[in-house]
């Protein structure tokens, strides 16, 4: 908005839009992400999901050899070709639903018992809830890691480093889990804190490097991911971490005391970590919306110059937010190490760090949105296992659907065009003002 110099600038273009109230020109990448997080209506999100499901269905159908064969006979039996395609996609999605939400057959078999206690004893009841349990278990690390990305993003930082922070948390948590004998309850809490601290330490490094040297957090987090992956491999090969009697890279099991308790009996994998994740989401929400620290984070994220002018320490916020974000990603490791696997391998970090970005974007960097997005991804993943197990549809289709959802959300104009929605941006300024996404 400066007028000095007076060369350059794009006055005529901007001047054609009387509703353009946006000041300055933030970097392009940030614009895109802001657009993803703020610019989409519910309708776009739902439409994106629907579009992804439809395209995923086409992929399922037309990679199925049975369907392809039916279509090669299209002229002879066109009805059959369509029926086969429909059966293939619908069957896969049905299996996905059974694996993620509820399987009617488990309900039916539980109803065969004439007493409730008998149904419980045979495990038929828990079988009913197994899909939901799996969804929650799959979602738990994504909630933590997604919150990590969302929190950092609200302070204007793009945390690609979920992987390194996960590993930091996992290493400390696992070591505390098997190496330090402690009584029940206390041990689990100490390990939980360890997971947070381990991740927070890595996050702090990122924040400190950005604050003190100006290093871009995206570069730093990506590089730290490599560093931590190799550090993990190396440490798991040392006598301090490696399970005795094993030559591969795996730690001893953590103590029973350090494990998080199951919530619904041993046959369901859902455990206390899920509740901790929900509590973390509530905590992040409180931090962002109800605390002075969150106020600073949001100010720094929305307009660092104004935040600085108002006397806030922008660099201090960066360090703090990355520390907390790292801790949250570390808690994702707790979900895996304390909740389900009870051990750590050189591959335990999986793809949580990357999926978390998608989850946070889909959840619009809001805690509740992140939880819901993580549950959606957890459901897709849990359903994907059933889908592949039952129909041999490659589990990769789940990844494709996830990617398509994000792609459609990242391309609102495309979605709007597909569904003939009139974009808020194309409308007059009144609509833009009335929209009001201030969450």
């Amino acid at each position: 908005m400066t007028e000095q110099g007076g060369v350059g600038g794009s006055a005529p273009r901007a001047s054609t839009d009387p509703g353009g109230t946006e000041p300055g020109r933030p970097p392009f990448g940030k614009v895109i992400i802001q657009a993803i997080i703020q610019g989409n209506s519910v309708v776009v999100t739902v439409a994106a999901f629907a579009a992804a499901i439809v395209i995923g269905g086409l992929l399922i159908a037309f990679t199925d050899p049975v369907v392809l064969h039916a279509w090669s006979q299209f002229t002879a039996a066109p009805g059959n070709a369509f029926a086969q395609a429909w059966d293939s996609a619908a069957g896969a999605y049905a299996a996905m639903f059974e694996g993620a939400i509820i399987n009617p057959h488990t309900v039916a078999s539980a109803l065969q018992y004439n007493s409730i206690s008998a149904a419980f004893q045979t495990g038929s009841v828990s079988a009913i809830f197994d899909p939901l349990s799996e969804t929650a278990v799959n979602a738990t690390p994504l909630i933590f890691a997604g919150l990590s990305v969302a929190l950092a993003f609200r302070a204007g930082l793009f945390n690609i480093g979920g992987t390194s922070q996960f590993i930091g948390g996992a290493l400390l948590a696992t070591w505390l889990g098997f190496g330090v004998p402690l009584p029940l309850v206390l041990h689990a809490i100490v390990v939980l804190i360890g997971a947070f601290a381990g991740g927070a330490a890595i996050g702090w490094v990122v924040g400190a490097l950005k604050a003190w040297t100006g290093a871009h957090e995206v570069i730093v987090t990506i590089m730290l991911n490599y560093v931590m992956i190799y550090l993990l491999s190396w440490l798991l090969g040392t006598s301090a971490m490696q399970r005795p009697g094993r030559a591969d890279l795996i730690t001893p099991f953590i103590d029973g005391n350090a494990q998080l308790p199951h919530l619904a009996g041993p046959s369901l994998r859902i455990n206390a970590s899920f509740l901790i994740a929900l509590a973390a989401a509530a905590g992040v929400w409180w931090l962002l919306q109800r605390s002075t620290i969150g106020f600073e984070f949001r100010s720094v994220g929305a307009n660092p110059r104004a935040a600085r002018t108002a006397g806030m320490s922008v660099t201090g916020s960066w360090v703090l937010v990355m520390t907390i974000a790292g801790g949250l990603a570390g808690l994702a490791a707790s979900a895996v190490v304390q909740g389900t696997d009870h051990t750590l391998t050189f591959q335990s970090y999986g793809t949580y760090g990357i999926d978390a970005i998608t989850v946070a974007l889909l959840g619009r960097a809001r805690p509740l949105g992140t939880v819901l997005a993580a549950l959606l991804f957890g459901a897709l993943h849990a359903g994907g296992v059933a889908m592949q197990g039952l129909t041999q549809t490659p589990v990769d289709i789940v990844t494709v659907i996830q990617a398509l959802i994000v792609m459609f959300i990242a391309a609102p104009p495309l979605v709007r065009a597909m569904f003939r929605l009139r974009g808020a941006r194309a409308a007059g300024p009144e609509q833009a003002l009335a929209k009001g996404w201030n969450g």
Partner: protein
Amino acid sequence: MRQSVRAAAAISVLALLAAGCGTKSAAGGGGSSSPSPKSGASAFTACMVTDTGGIDDRSFNASSWQGVQQAEGNGITGKYLQSTSPSDYTPNINQFLGQKCGIIVTVGFLMGDATQTAAKGHPSQKFAIVDFTYPKPLKNVDALLFNTVQDGFLGGYLAAGMSKTHKVATFGGQKLPTVTIYMDGFWDGVQYYNAKHHTNVKVLGWNEKTQNGNFTGDFTNQSKGQQLTQTFISEGADIVFPVAGNVGLGAAKAVQQADQSGQNVNMLWVDTDGCVSAPQYCKYFISSVTKGIQTAVKTAVTAAHNGSFKGGNYVGTLTNGGVGLAPFHDFASKVPASLKAELNQVKTGIENGSIKTATKSPV
């Protein structure tokens, strides 16, 4: 905002519901829990859980799946589930536990824990695990391990005998026991050749004594394999033995480039017969250091089907044909008869125990 996301989630659940209901009417018929046309009611299903490498890793997942496929027919059908992260192992096994599989084959040592837990919880379910063994054998698990130090030893001896530059090289994908056991054998084989022929053939990339060497870091990034192999070649190695799955293709590319620029460089392939799994590079493969995952898995599946399943640990050796050198193919005429004869002697020596094959990896 919150309401909107909630609505989004609700609608997505509806969408899933719609998909679920849709099947009922469309797939219709028997109401079978499995819409797959392949699975019949009485069929014996061999269910395989891959590790994160997936079914196309040109390595143990692929070999295991080939074993399952070879066992198919005669009432046996195969299906698989792919793990995308270690956290998938348990749910994937659980998924198959709920499907009345004749046998559940898990691939890779990383699934050792999950398989053990499942096997103890379901004593009547038959399992097989590839590349792993239990200190206390389990009755319902066929643990299939391969003593590849033995054929690695043969490979090292062969490489030492074929090297003109008196330098050979090996490298791994990651420092894992199933990888380093090959490299141990290779290193030992070279040392044995040196002792016998009073030569000084050097091994680049691994040392059995210190257990240190070169690794590319994963089993997928071919360019790293190519880079590392180029380094070895520039250091004078003329035979390279990559123990790194698909990364070996990068090594083959480097060898091809060296060959095209007039250098005489060749290599050994690993796990499978390279002239079958990567035929485009067959002319550079002196031989391949293989392990018989396919056969072992096929045997386990067939045994579970026909009732001869015993459980316990199986170790593939030179003697039982579980490991061994592949045919020489293009090099059949180039490997001297004397060296072939020596290889046979060494093989006999390993089999009868007169030649010790040391390895720090568990066998």
